[in-house]
């Protein structure tokens, strides 16, 4: 069957990640299962004069080892992370590349980033304003632009259809994946790479985040009574999406089906999320996937560990799920990989796909003392075996920009 209710189905045929728990899905997933925390004292820049000195940095990322293409080796780290995660996803999907001329225009590449090559910009401003250099490095502009990750990946694999970056702060990856899903479903393309990358950990950005007073100096403890803010992190999360018949025909491995996508905006406040916006996005994703709340086995929560997010997200889940809220397993894997900002939704989508594939719910690390007002099953400390047929991944960004994805098992 090509269609459900006359609709083209979209499956996941590959995925890839770069995370503070390591590079590659297997390392990432085994880290999540073990409840390993990738948040540490910052090593990549001098934290002098900062009171926030921890972050989720990607360990041991060597462009020479992790990348093949020379242009990518000269790119900003955010594009390098995207290129590395995309390579893992494409290899896993067993897609022949470069994509044939026949299919090239029927392929998409939407890889976003919250801020693109911010570290490249910081470095070049330092050179100009502090070191009084007369010019910046000639690649500065190409490294900095927020569409360079998607451009690099399209060049790498010969993707000639819709290709661009998409921006929605911490919902960027989920919106990008959802965008490719809709293009496949609506018949514009047959396959596409979707996700996001972020590598904005530097002195200036930390200073800016610090001024917003939302970061924790100690760690990221979602749904905890003692949660005191989020922790910045970096990485990439990319999915290879494909129309079901197309994937089946070429004998591709099918990891999961992308069943539904919901997106809304709170249209209310830049930092205070609304229950209305979040729950409307969840409802929209459920309706799109033709599922009811009781069908959902696992929710990978946005769970940033700020005072406002965790309470708002709990209330939104309760509003939509009703009694089913008590039976669904929830966790915030940010407790382990940190808040990877624009890339977060992509990394968390991979966690959701793995949860389905392995019938396993990863934990919320560090949740020893839950907030009494956050009273759902957040899978504290230890992950658990559980049959996971349908998994939801929530992203609720600054500005009230919400994106929710629902994954299901490979079509029978």
């Amino acid at each position, binding site marked *: 069957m090509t269609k459900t209710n006359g609709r083209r189905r979209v499956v996941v045929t590959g995925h890839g990640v770069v995370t503070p728990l390591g590079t590659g899905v297997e390392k990432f997933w085994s880290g999540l299962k073990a409840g390993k925390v990738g948040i540490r004292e910052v090593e990549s820049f001098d934290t002098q004069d900062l009171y926030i000195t921890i972050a989720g940095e990607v360990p041991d990322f060597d462009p020479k080892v992790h990348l093949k293409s020379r242009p990518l080796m000269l790119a900003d780290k955010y594009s390098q992370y995207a290129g590395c995660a995309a390579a893992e996803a494409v290899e896993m999907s067993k897609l022949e590349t470069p994509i044939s001329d026949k299919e090239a225009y029927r392929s998409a590449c939407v890889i976003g980033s919250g801020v693109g090559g911010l570290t490249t910009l910081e470095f070049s401003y330092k050179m100009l304003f502090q070191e009084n250099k007369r010019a910046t490095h000639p690649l500065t502009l190409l490294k900095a632009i927020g569409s360079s990750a998607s451009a690099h990946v399209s060049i790498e694999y010969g993707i000639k259809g819709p290709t661009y970056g998409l921006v929605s702060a911490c919902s960027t990856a989920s919106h990008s994946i959802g965008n490719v899903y809709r293009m496949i479903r609506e018949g514009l393309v047959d396959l596409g790479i979707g996700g996001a990358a972020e590598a904005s950990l530097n002195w200036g950005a930390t200073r800016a985040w610090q001024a917003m*007073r939302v970061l924790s100096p100690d760690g990221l403890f979602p749904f905890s009574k003692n949660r005191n803010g989020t922790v910045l992190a970096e990485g990439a999360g990319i999915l290879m999406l494909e129309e079901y018949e197309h994937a089946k025909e070429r004998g591709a491995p099918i990891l999961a089906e992308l069943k539904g996508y919901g997106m809304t905006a709170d249209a209310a406040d830049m930092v205070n999320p609304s229950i209305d916006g979040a729950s409307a996005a969840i409802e929209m994703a459920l309706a799109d996937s033709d599922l009811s709340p009781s069908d959902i086995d696992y929710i990978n929560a946005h769970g940033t560990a700020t005072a406002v997010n965790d309470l708002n997200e709990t209330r939104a889940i309760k509003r939509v799920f009703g009694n089913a809220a008590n039976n669904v397993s929830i966790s915030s894997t940010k407790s382990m990989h940190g808040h990877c900002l624009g890339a977060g939704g992509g990394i968390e989508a991979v966690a959701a796909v793995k949860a389905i594939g392995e019938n396993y719910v990863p934990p919320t690390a560090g949740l020893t003392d839950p907030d009494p007002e956050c009273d759902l099953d957040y899978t504290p400390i230890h992950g658990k075996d559980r049959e996971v047929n349908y998994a939801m991944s929530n992203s609720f960004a600054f500005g009230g920009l919400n994106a929710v994805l629902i994954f299901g098992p490979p079509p029978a």
Partner: protein
Amino acid sequence: MDDVADKIIEILRKNMKDPSKTVTLETPLSELEIESLDLAVIVFDIEDTFGIEIPYNANEEVEAFATVGSVVDRVNSIIAETKSSGAAA
């Protein structure tokens, strides 16, 4: 009221929805209709004005931010600490 208090009230007024409201040392911050993001801006402005750093986290209830007077006290004590550590160095 001292100079520090005057300057702090001036900073608060800039960020209030209704700057014509009466503000005294006893006024609770909650009465000034200041939202969390405004508070971050106010703290930034105070730090910049007095050349100090105020440890403040929007995720936590902080006693020092209960009333205008408690903010003034906190700022005065940080100014004193900064001066004494500067003298020691």
